[in-house]
């Protein structure tokens, strides 16, 4: 099994699609860092001056008119029908502050989790693609038949292929995430604010990164199984795209309550350690009025982790069962 896995790993790294995938990942990584650089870049002197001027104007306006406007507002408030909004909510005219004008500095600890999460999506996608083609090509070319005349123990063959796809993607994902993490740190350190990056922040970020490596490996294994089941790379990609659009997109929009059972949210909950989602809750009040609220809910990390684990195990077992029984022509 170890020998077979090594052979499969060698095949994986020799494949052209793997190389193309790596180049793609490299380009996306560069692109992401460049985008971060432009986002974090402070305003130019001219822009800063403009922001300063705007602040001064707004401040002057506030000094001149705030009192007058508040009086006006209070008068208006008295004429409001019941139930009245709170006075202190309706009539706030706070003093403009300089930092409200121009661009706030980029804070590393704030942007990094989102960046890692975004990276986990494209890594999972690349891993799925590479995994699907790793097995899809073997079936569509018929090379699997020849392979089985050398090693007829199908479950070993199956296991070695999945293991190779999954472990092969671990270093790739780890490197990509590390480059994004440290690249962003260097950029923000130069242009923005990294002072708040405590040990806790670092350990949270590396935990997110570590879990993104895990999801990439899972995606590679799942891609392999789907490639095996459908026997063609293109078919595997098509089915997953259709699923993402129909189930995760359309279905989730109509049936908000189903979100905790869809892959995307569980994926997020696992990678981000809890994830938020929104459902519309409508109630008929005691007075017969009908009102809808947009309520935020949380899906727990544990839910996401169990969901992904069970989902992977089920799919892998299904693939193994099918491959074990399948006639290879």
């Amino acid at each position: 099994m170890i020998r077979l896995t090594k052979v499969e790993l060698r095949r994986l790294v020799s494949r052209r699609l793997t190389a193309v995938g790596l180049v793609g990942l490299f380009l996306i990584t560069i692109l992401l860092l460049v985008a971060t650089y432009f986002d974090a870049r402070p305003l130019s002197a001219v822009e800063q001056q403009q922001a300063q001027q705007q602040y001064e104007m707004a401040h002057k306006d506030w000094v001149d008119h705030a009192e007058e406007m508040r009086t006006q507002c209070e008068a208006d408030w008295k004429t409001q029908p019941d139930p009245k909004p709170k006075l202190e909510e309706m009539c706030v005219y706070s003093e403009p502050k300089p930092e409200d004008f121009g661009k706030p500095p980029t804070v590393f600890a704030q942007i990094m989790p989102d960046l890692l999460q975004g990276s986990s999506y494209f890594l999972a996608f690349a891993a799925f693609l590479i995994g699907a083609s790793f097995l899809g090509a073997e079936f569509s070319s018929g090379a699997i038949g020849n392979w089985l005349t050398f090693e007829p123990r199908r479950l070993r063959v199956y296991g070695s292929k999945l293991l190779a796809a999954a472990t092969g993607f671990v270093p790739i994902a780890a490197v990509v995430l590390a480059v994004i993490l440290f690249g962003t740190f260097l950029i923000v350190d130069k242009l923005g604010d990294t002072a708040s990056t405590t040990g806790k922040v670092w350990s949270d970020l590396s935990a997110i990164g570590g879990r993104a490596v895990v999801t990439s490996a899972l995606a590679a294994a799942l891609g392999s199984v789907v490639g095996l089941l459908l026997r063609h790379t293109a078919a595997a990609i098509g089915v997953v795209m259709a699923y993402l659009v129909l189930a995760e997109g359309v279905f989730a929009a109509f049936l908000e309550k189903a979100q905790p059972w869809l892959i995307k949210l569980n994926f997020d909950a696992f990678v981000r350690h809890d994830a938020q989602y929104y459902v519309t809750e409508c109630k008929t009040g005691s007075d017969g009025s009908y009102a809808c609220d947009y309520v935020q809910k949380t899906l727990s990390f544990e839910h996401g982790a169990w969901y992904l684990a069970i989902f992977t195990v089920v799919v892998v077992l299904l693939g193994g069962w099918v491959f074990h029984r399948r006639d290879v022509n």
Partner: protein
Amino acid sequence: MSDVAISTRGLRKTYRTRRGRKVVAVQGLDLEVPAGGVHGFLGPNGSGKTTSIRMLLGLIRADAGTMTVFGRPVPAQLPEVVGRIGAIVESPKFFPAFTGQKNLELLAEAIGAPRARVGEVLEQTSLGERGKDRFRSYSLGMKQRLAIAATLLKEPDLLIFDEPTNGLDPAGIREIRETMRGLGEQGKTVLVSSHILAEVEQVADTVSIIGHGRLLASGTVAEVIGGGTAPTVKVAVNNHEAATRVLTAAGMTVRADGNYLLVEGAPDPADVTRRLAHQELYVSELTPVRADLESVFLELTEGEGL
């Protein structure tokens, strides 16, 4: 080594087509391939040769029946004997984007064969430098050579070739024939399925003929030819009608064949001349028709094809 390389009993396989129709590809096949030498596995298109070979190799499941290879039940104990079997089923299939050499290296590593073996088998099959080209760019003959090279990685005792000469030119066909002959002479067992009977007749020590997934005949080439048809003679005589009457009356079977008559069931060719001469019918030409595998095959498998 047991003296039977392959044996199957009551082997059966039914395919289900896309439209749900059932196709019985192999029905109760009893096959026995002696160890050592070349065994021809003959049958018309669609008679179940490839299906039987796939079942032996564990690529597809049999619905019923038992199989053994070198005395081991397969597919249950296939892993124990697979190292002794080299097989090419239908057209050779490898990873198209990898070079021939890379393909062989992966296979060699999978079975724990030394890497140096790859160079050796490439040389043996005269692929040599072409081993560095992608499999996709190979001609049919080169693909076939690569497949043979792959089977040689294992140094097998049993070689299974499913129509190895399909699509090859005469030189290629001869080469494969010589390879098979050579392997047979080394004491290895070669099972070769083919349509080209003249081909098989030249190399095979023993043959099995199947039709509709059932065994029709088997044995040495001589036994199969001898047992299949009575000796036939081809006769030229001027009065066909009279001659036919005379010979039929003597219990022989007569068929017209252009300007000749084909006479079967004569104990001796001299018998034919004597009986005709008695009636003043004089034979101008008489040739014994040598029975060959092809005629036996056609006779046995008449109406068995697709």
